């Protein structure tokens, strides 16, 4: 629990900032799950909804930017407050990127043909579940200022990477065997890539949460071996 500040207005600013980040996070989370649902089921209205809501994320990011500048200019925060504010600013940027990846997935929903008997499509939801759970948990870690949970989320990224490698190979062999589906399969490759990036960005948020909570930097992940 962060100590109360003498200036109540400062507390309100920080509370408002954290609220905005949480709201962005909620939108990003929903964008991932709905984009995947739209992709798998071919639900175009759902995909359109995701694309339309991305504007809201962008608007919130701009609001966070303004608020952060105002807090720094007016209140000259120090120590853990400053860390918290800087981390929030960075997290807002990362969440906006995650929203973009989800929007990109939603845009590809319309380009998949022969959905019902398209086998690679069954591999993606499990990967999306892990990526979405990383985003979910890292936002919980942000809310609770929980450095341990942030570290756990970082460690989970290896699973998403393993999934990506597996799906990549599966997809390539599928394309070799079924050249007629290459267009659709290529789109799915990009979807897998987007999910992998979402996982990476969750670890970036985890780093910021850890930094805000402890003031330390998490050691960089050991790079996974190149394929």
């Amino acid at each position, binding site marked *: 629990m962060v100590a109360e500040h003498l200036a109540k207005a400062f507390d309100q600013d920080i509370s408002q900032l*954290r*609220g905005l980040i949480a*709201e962005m*996070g*909620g939108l990003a989370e929903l964008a991932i799950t709905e984009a995947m649902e739209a992709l798998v089921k071919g639900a175009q209205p759902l995909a359109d909804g995701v694309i339309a809501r991305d504007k*809201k994320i962008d608007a919130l990011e701009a609001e966070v930017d303004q608020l952060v500048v105002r807090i720094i200019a007016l209140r000259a925060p120090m120590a853990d407050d400053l860390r918290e504010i800087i981390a929030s600013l960075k997290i807002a940027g990362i969440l906006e990127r995650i929203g973009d990846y989800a929007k990109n997935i939603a845009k590809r929903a319309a380009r998949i043909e022969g959905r019902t008997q398209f086998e690679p499509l069954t591999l993606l939801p499990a*990967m999306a579940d892990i990526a979405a759970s990383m985003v979910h948990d890292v936002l*919980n870690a942000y809310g*609770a200022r929980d450095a341990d949970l942030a570290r756990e989320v970082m460690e989970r990224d290896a699973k998403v990477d393993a999934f990506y490698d*597996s799906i990549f190979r599966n997809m390539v062999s599928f394309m070799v065997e079924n050249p007629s589906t290459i267009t659709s399969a290529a789109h799915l490759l990009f979807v897998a890539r987007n999910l992998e990036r979402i996982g990476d960005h969750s670890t970036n948020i985890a780093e910021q949460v850890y930094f805000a909570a402890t003031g330390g930097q998490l050691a960089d992940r050991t790079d996974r071996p190149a394929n």
Partner: protein
Amino acid sequence: MRVGHPHDMTEYDAQGSSGMSARTPIPWPGMALAAMTLTMLNQTALPKLVLVLVGLFWLLSLWVEWLRPRPAPQMVERPTPNAPEQVTIGGIRASIEAMGFPLVVIDHSRVLAANQAARDTFGRHIIGQDARIALRHPDAVRLLDMADGESVTIRGLTGAGSLWQVTRRRIDAGHWAIELRDRTAEADISRAHTDFVANASHELRTPLASIIGYIETLVDTPEGMDPAMRLRFLNIVLSQAQRMQALVADLMSLSQLEAEKHDAPTEPVDMNALAQMVTASFAPLPGQRESRVCLTLPGDGVALTVQGDPRQLEQLLRNLVDNALKYGHHDTPVRVILDHTGADGRRPMAVLQVIDQGAGIAPDHLPHLTRRFYRTDPGRSQSAGGTGLGLAIVKHIVERHRGQLDIASEVGVGTCFTIRLPLTGARLNAV
């Protein structure tokens, strides 16, 4: 945020009874100036106008202090015995605490109180923070701005697959209660039901087809069949029937797990004793000198207690050891290692590892291992008597116990399954 706090009342009370003058300072600066001017007046002969001005100035200063119109003090009504009791946040906190569903009290933006169930669901950090920290789902954020009494059904509020009905109710001007009802279990049961039927019918069809095939052959040739051949057929029928039996048992425990996955188990389970019991049950086969399973208990000798369901934890370890024996090389040992983390200040967890030395699993397969009926090598799995559900069951048990499952494998070397389960609070301090 205080609503009718007792202190406010006593303060205004004192003011009302002893009058205003007791608190009002005499206008010293004005009086001093006036006195100074009067003494000077005796010595020098100032015009009368100055005297009049000073007098006016003094009167003005008196007016400023005593007669200036003041805002009426905000009196808080003293609760009379007949009037309804005042609502205080402390009172609300106490009365919602024991409710069986999460309830959060908010003002215009912040969470003021959250009962036990809400703290369990969202964490205790939400109190005092912006309401969006707890309810960040876009539909929930929308609800925060909606009219009183509105209700929304939200999917994914507390993780994938969760389903909540969230209602906003007004307490008084400026305070609202957010009531959360968990509908996940109800939604899950219907889904689990369809899954079960789909899985069961698909997987039971194969052994059933072969049983029917062999029995038809036996029926069609009542006398012509050679006894050795008939015995072989009957053995195949028996083994297929046994396979179906194992499959039904696994499907049953899986659907049981699905049904209970939302109520965390509460029994304290001694992991040391459990590991010893399970490893001892894999007794050496006749003709073998010693068991292939060897157990290593924590080096520092602590007894690890987790909150769990002993039957399920036993099934978990049994499934893992069973797998390791099946897929490890025949003459190699299967190591079961029980240990704990938490010494370095991180969250204390019991760590259970089952390590075999065998062919290992290609990295491509690792992410899919815990899927139902996923087999890396269908032929081998069936000849070993696997149902394809063992690891799915392990994963579900770990999830129900709020633990983690990690699988590491190297082709040609072997596979290591690591389970981490949170240690109970009492153990946490002793470690």
